[in-house]
């Protein structure tokens, strides 16, 4: 840790949810730019998208810039480390607020097939 940093906090959390859709549908929602734009964004009543770039492959980057109603700017920049279709995404991301870096995170997104036949679904596990 640098003694110049104002403060450093490390945290880790896992969030899971069971979806009644197959892993392919979930994976597409995370990797198709048009699809991801529909749900991975700021609150629609307070936030406007300005830049959205995606390059989902190992070494590829995402960039998402938006403006809140009060004029403040948020920026999300990600770098992919692991991309396994219908199984897993691992990326690091930096969050910027008004051009200032506010956090650095490592995220892994797992798509775990659940059930069989007419009861198939996906457990989505986000670990940060």
């Amino acid at each position, binding site marked *: 840790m640098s003694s110049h940093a104002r403060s450093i906090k490390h*945290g880790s*959390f896992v969030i899971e*949810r*069971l979806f*009644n859709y197959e892993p392919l549908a*979930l994976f597409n929602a995370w990797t198709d730019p048009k699809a991801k734009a529909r749900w991975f964004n700021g609150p629609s009543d307070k936030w406007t998208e300005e830049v959205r770039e995606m390059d989902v492959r190992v070494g590829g980057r995402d960039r998402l810039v938006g403006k809140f109603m009060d004029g403040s700017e948020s920026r999300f920049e990600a770098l992919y480390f692991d991309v396994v279709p219908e199984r897993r995404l691992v990326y690091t991301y930096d969050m910027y607020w008004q051009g200032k870096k506010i956090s650095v995170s490592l995220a892994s997104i797992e798509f775990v097939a659940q059930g069989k036949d007419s*009861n*198939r679904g996906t457990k989505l596990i986000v670990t940060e």
Partner: protein
Amino acid sequence: MPDTLRGDQLSSTFAALADPTRRAILSRLTTGEASVTELAEPFDMSLPAVTKHLKVLQRAGLVIQGREAQWRPCRLQAKPMREAAEWMEPYRRHWEQRFDRLEDYLRETTTKGTRRPGKGK
């Protein structure tokens, strides 16, 4: 460690929680106060080992031990846990809201692959 982080309550709380025995002790204390002997009962470890874990919980302010002679009951201190939960809440809520929107998106666009009506958990 920078001076600003010394004595940081949140760090002590999370460090104290980073152990299954200590979490089990806390969980037991949610049902009411207990003596050290009572707390040690379910664990396959010596009384001194359990006492050591209790000391960590006490230093972090998660547990206080009464002064009553003899049985000196341990009690939960809610405040640090509440602060830790409050610190984590925005992250959880942020993802929960995203998952809600993801679910809406899937419902609107997918016809194949829908297995059951209604929301997932």
